[in-house]
């Protein structure tokens, strides 16, 4: 039986969390993590920060417990490759029927190897 918390692989949800910039330590940025199976372990998910709206957003592939942490920005290695199957964007700005859904912005998400 399929896991009810798991979402369609090609239709991830978009999680958006508001943060207060005054709570941030200088040089750090809000980042979304996911708690692993009700343990004390948290997995880095990432997230796109919108400083004007003070939000952090990310695509998620399963429901569960998510948290916002502050951490120093991570710089990718120059040799890092994009994992093609991880590339998604949500919400969809255009629908297959040609009818534009009321979204004027989309979030592109990907993972590096």
């Amino acid at each position: 039986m399929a896991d009810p918390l798991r979402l369609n692989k090609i239709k991830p949800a978009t999680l958006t969390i508001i943060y207060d910039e005054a709570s941030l330590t200088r040089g750090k940025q809000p980042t979304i993590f996911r708690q692993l199976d009700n343990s004390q372990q948290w997995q880095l998910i990432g997230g796109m920060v919108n400083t004007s709206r003070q939000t952090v957003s990310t695509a998620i592939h399963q429901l569960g417990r998510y948290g916002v942490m502050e951490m120093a920005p991570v710089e990718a290695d120059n040799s890092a490759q994009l994992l093609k199957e991880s590339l998604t964007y949500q919400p969809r700005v255009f629908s297959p029927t040609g009818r534009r859904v009321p979204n004027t912005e989309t979030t592109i998400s990907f993972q590096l190897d």
Partner: protein
Amino acid sequence: MLFGTATDANFKSYQVEFGEGASPTIWAAAFTQDSQTSVEQGELLQGLPGKRSGIYSLRLTVEDQVEQQGQAQVRISITSLMEKARGGDVRSADAGISLYLPPNSLQQDAIVTVNRTPSSAISWSLDSSWQPLDLNWWPIRYG
């Protein structure tokens, strides 16, 4: 389901109550008898059968052997059934967290809720390069 922690060195029992709205004046017990077993990062309550969509508050009271009590309170938002084929938006009761589910993202029709837990209510690993962030935002209005 409500997950959380109800423990004490001299634990006696815990009780979960619920009330309608963000600041209820009337509280009702969520189960008929106090639970005599402590819970650590586990299931405190199976659910609120028969509740319609809306904002509710849940109050956890833990009592020790000398009848001293500690309390914690959270707000939850119960939403109506989300249709798999339509998807939609779900927000936390304070509108600080939103979740957009595109059409056919869910595997079946389901009730999806977004509930905020303060960082103080969660056990954190201390030897990490990140720290939980307290989200002291001003609630905003959408729409």
